[in-house]
C-alpha cells in the first residue's frame, strides 16, 4: 500500500515537472519574441507556482480533461495574484515586464498545450507519437537550456540573471533544432537507453555547433555547451518516456 502511494506521488511529480518545463519554455519563447526580458527570479517563481498547482491537482484530484482545464486556468491565475501582491517590491529600473491580465490567457494556452502533449499526444499509437514526443522533449529541453544560460550569466557576470543571450535567433533556433533532432531520433530508434544516448549526442552536437556558428559562445564554451546540452537532452527524453508509460487508470 505504502509502495503504491509513493508510486502515485512519483507519477504526479514526474508529470508535473515535464508539463511545467514545457509550459515555461513556451512562455519564455513568447517573452523573447515579444521583446520582454526574461529574469531568472521571475522564471523560478513561475516554475514553483505552476509546478505546485499541476502536481497537487494530479496527485489529489486526477488527470481528466476537466482537471487539466482547471489546472491550466488556476495556475496562471494564482501566479497573477502573486504578481499583483509582489508588484510594490519590484525594482522597476531593472524589471520591466508589466504583467497584464491577458498574460493569464497566454500562460493558460501554454499550460494547456503542455498538458495535452504530455497526457495525450505522447500516448498515441500512431506516428504522431514521435512528433508529440519530439515537441514535448524539445520544449522541455529548451526550458533547461535557457535556465542554464541564465544561471551561467548570473554566476559568471554576477548579473541579475537576465536572459541577455535569449535573442529570438537563439531561442527559436534551439527550439526548432531540438524538436527536429529528437523527433528524428524518436522515429529511427526504439525507446530505451540507446535512444536517450543518441538523442543526447545529436542534440549536444547540433546545438553546440549552432551556438558557435551564431557567435554566442567561445570555442572552449562550445565543448562545455555540447556536454551540458547532451545531458539535458538525455534527462528530458527519459522523463518524457517515463510520463508516456504512465497508467493513470490505476
Amino acid at each position, binding site marked *: 500500500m505504502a509502495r503504491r*502511494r509513493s508510486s*502515485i506521488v512519483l*507519477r*504526479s511529480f514526474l508529470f508535473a515537472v515535464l508539463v511545467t518545463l514545457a509550459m515555461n519554455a513556451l512562455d519564455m519563447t513568447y517573452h523573447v519574441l515579444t521583446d520582454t526580458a526574461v*529574469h*531568472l*527570479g*521571475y522564471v*523560478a*517563481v513561475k516554475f*514553483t*507556482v505552476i509546478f*505546485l*498547482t499541476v502536481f*497537487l*491537482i*494530479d*496527485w*489529489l*484530484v*486526477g*488527470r*481528466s480533461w*476537466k*482537471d487539466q482545464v*482547471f489546472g491550466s486556468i*488556476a495556475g496562471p491565475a*494564482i*501566479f497573477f*495574484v*502573486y504578481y499583483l*501582491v*509582489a508588484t510594490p*517590491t*519590484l*525594482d522597476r529600473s*531593472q*524589471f520591466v515586464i508589466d504583467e497584464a491580465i491577458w498574460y493569464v490567457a497566454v500562460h493558460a494556452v501554454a499550460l494547456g498545450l503542455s498538458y495535452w502533449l504530455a497526457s495525450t499526444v505522447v500516448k498515441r499509437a500512431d506516428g504522431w507519437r514521435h512528433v508529440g514526443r519530439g515537441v514535448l522533449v524539445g520544449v522541455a529541453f529548451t526550458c533547461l537550456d535557457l535556465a542554464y544560460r541564465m544561471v551561467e550569466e548570473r554566476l559568471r557576470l554576477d548579473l*541579475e540573471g537576465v536572459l541577455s543571450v535569449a535573442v529570438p535567433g537563439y531561442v527559436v533556433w534551439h527550439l526548432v533544432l531540438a524538436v527536429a533532432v529528437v523527433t528524428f531520433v524518436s522515429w529511427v530508434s526504439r525507446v530505451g537507453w540507446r535512444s536517450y544516448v543518441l538523442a543526447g549526442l545529436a542534440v549536444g552536437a547540433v546545438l553546440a555547433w549552432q551556438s558557435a556558428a551564431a557567435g554566442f559562445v567561445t570555442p572552449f564554451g562550445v565543448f562545455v555547451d555540447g556536454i551540458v546540452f547532451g545531458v539535458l537532452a538525455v534527462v528530458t527524453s527519459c522523463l518524457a518516456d517515463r510520463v508516456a508509460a504512465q497508467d*493513470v*487508470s*490505476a
Partner: protein
Amino acid sequence: MKKRVKILLAIIFVCALIAATFLLIPGKVQRDIGIGFGRFNDRVLIGTIALIGVVVLSWKVWREKKPGNKRSGGR
C-alpha cells in the same frame, strides 16, 4: 472528507493565516529586481503556496461532491 485531507486543509489554513500576518507588515527591503527567491517577497510566495493548496482542495471537494464525476488518476 477523509481525515488526511482535513489535516492537510488545516495546515494550509494555518499557513495562509501566517502569510496574511506577514503581508500586513510593511517592508522596505528591496534587492535586485525584487522578485524571486531569497528576496523581500518570499512572504508573498508563502501566501501564494497556501492559496494553491486552498484552490486545489476546493476543486477536489467540488469534484467529489458532483454526482457522476469520473476520476482518472489521482487519489
